[in-house]
């Protein structure tokens, strides 16, 4: 094996940038807290906390999508991702960090502000009884602070725990003992077991209950069976874009010699395919409600399609559907580092906008302004992510040297 650069080192520039973004974000959060958070008007407080909420949930879910990618490819006995597998693993170390932030924000909304807040209407049981809202009263078995607490702890806790076990298993790939066929088989088998546990838990949370609890219950009267898959698709396609960005960054710095356009092509295919999948869900949700035209269903789309969120709502569709289908369709774009970088940034921005309108479109109905607070909070999360993912990448070799499937990845052809 040729000597290759396999130990990542965090550059001073990267550290400076990540700390600068974090500082900028922290200032924005503090200023936002003073501006909105300390207001005596509950609606102003809701705007501040909802901004923190959608950002923390978005960034946690896209980092968790990395672990989903690792587990899904493991279960599929995929070999092609092995040469850059340490990158999604490093990104997934953010799940506990962002999970803690998201947990704190959600718990403050549910337990701290309680029945005062209008973010979750189901918290105000007395108010629901007064207005005779039987639709939501019937859902209180599911939508109550106790279940919310337990399920949130379980969801974030098990994602972190199972992700940690997957990363722990991956450490063994640096051990020459894996060259032995029996040890290699047992390694693959233990990977398969942990990955399948993660996938099952992922389906029970991101694939169904968690988006209902955290996001859909903001419009407690309204429901859509597409919603969880829609959220999953949104987070997965952004997660793939994030992986692509990190892979390209590392390639630029001269790491990941075994990763080339063939791997980039496959990452590009994921970005392309799941953009289309997201649009499919977007459209299925929209068209059925448009066709049925029942007021309790159209309430979700009313202020998004016709109201102040109109611009953002359709911008969302253009960025996340029209751009990927037209630009990423060609083979040569998916193999071009510059174009994939551009599209990855665009897709990440587009799905961040998507989460923005999913939450703020219901919390802040009177105007749709992407303010400095939104960008500031996002900068905080991006900075934190760069800082910690860089650290996680530096902790172990970038190439799982003795992974049984590494050869398959090196000779990979799409």
């Amino acid at each position: 094996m040729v000597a290759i650069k396999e130990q990542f080192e965090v550059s001073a520039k990267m550290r400076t940038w990540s700390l600068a973004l974090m500082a900028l974000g922290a200032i924005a959060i503090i200023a936002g807290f003073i501006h909105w958070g300390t207001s005596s008007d509950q609606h102003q407080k809701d705007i501040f906390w909802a901004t923190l909420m959608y950002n923390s949930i978005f960034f946690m879910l896209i980092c968790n999508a990395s672990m989903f990618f690792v587990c899904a490819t493991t279960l599929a006995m995929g070999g092609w991702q092995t040469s850059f597998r340490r990158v999604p693993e490093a990104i997934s170390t953010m799940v506990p960090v962002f999970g803690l932030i998201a947990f704190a924000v959600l718990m403050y909304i549910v337990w701290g502000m309680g029945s005062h807040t209008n973010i979750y209407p189901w918290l105000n049981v007395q108010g629901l009884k007064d207005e005779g809202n039987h639709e939501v009263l019937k859902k209180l078995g599911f939508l109550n602070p106790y279940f919310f607490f337990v399920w949130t702890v379980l969801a974030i806790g098990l994602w972190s725990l199972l992700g940690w076990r997957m990363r722990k298993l991956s450490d063994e790939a640096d051990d020459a003992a894996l060259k032995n066929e029996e040890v290699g088989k047992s390694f693959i088998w233990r990977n398969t077991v942990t990955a399948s546990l993660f996938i099952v838990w992922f389906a029970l949370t991101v694939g169904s209950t968690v988006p209902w609890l955290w996001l859909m219950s903001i419009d407690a009267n309204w429901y859509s069976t597409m919603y969880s898959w829609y959220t999953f698709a949104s987070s997965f396609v952004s997660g793939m874009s994030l992986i692509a960005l990190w892979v390209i960054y590392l390639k630029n710095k001269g790491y990941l010699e075994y990763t080339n356009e063939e791997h980039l092509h496959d990452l590009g295919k994921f970005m392309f395919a799941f953009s289309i999948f997201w649009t499919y869900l977007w459209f299925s949700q929209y068209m059925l409600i448009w066709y049925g035209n029942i007021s309790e269903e159209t309430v979700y789309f009313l202020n998004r399609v016709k109201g102040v969120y109109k611009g953002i709502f359709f911008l969302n569709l253009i960025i996340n559907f029209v751009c990927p289908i037209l630009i990423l369709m060609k083979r040569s774009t998916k193999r071009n580092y510059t174009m994939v970088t551009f599209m990855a940034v665009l897709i990440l921005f587009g799905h961040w906008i998507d989460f923005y309108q999913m939450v703020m479109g219901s919390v802040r109905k009177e105007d749709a302004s992407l303010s400095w607070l939104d960008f500031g909070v996002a900068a905080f999360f991006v900075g934190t992510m760069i800082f910690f993912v860089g650290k996680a990448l530096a902790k172990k070799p970038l190439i799982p040297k003795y992974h049984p499937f590494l050869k398959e990845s090196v000779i990979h052809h799409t």
Partner: protein
Amino acid sequence: MAKKKFVVAAFDDEAVLFPAVKKVRMSGYKIHEVYTPFAVHGLDYALGLRETSIHTAGFIYGITGTCTALGGISFILAYDWPLNFGGKPAFALPAWIPIIFELTVLFSAVGMVLTFCYLCQLAPFVKKHHFNARSSDDLFVMVIECTAKTNVEDLKAFVTSSGAIEVNVQEAETEWWLGTYDKDQRLIKDSHVEVA
């Protein structure tokens, strides 16, 4: 149709086939085609074949389907004979999207199949020459075109030394029944061949 002479070499291993392809091309022989039992990744690249344009054709067929559906439905339902379906606007775009999508897929799929058949000369009335029937079973069959200058015996010895398990000489018709498609092979000096 003109008959041409070919040296047909059969290999039983991908790992032998790739260096052989490279060596044969490096020595200046023209490989007519390599027939394999399954799709071999990277072989098109090693052969120096140009990228197929069937996806461009597919895109054009797809766009044609989109326009046909959108044009057809909007002419009928919004202009020629508007009907009131449950109070929806005459130009009810969301309801048409599935049909537009289906027609896009239909046009591009059927169009690409027909284009593929045309490019590969596949039609009920075309008789194809099979160089080696085992290329659909377990052998990789490399077909090398001979010109007037080619020393057939030398070439046979050369491919045998490259690892071919079976070599013979055949004559076959190679003309295309409509148009041509065999001009675009890149020369070995223009392409970077990697052996996996």
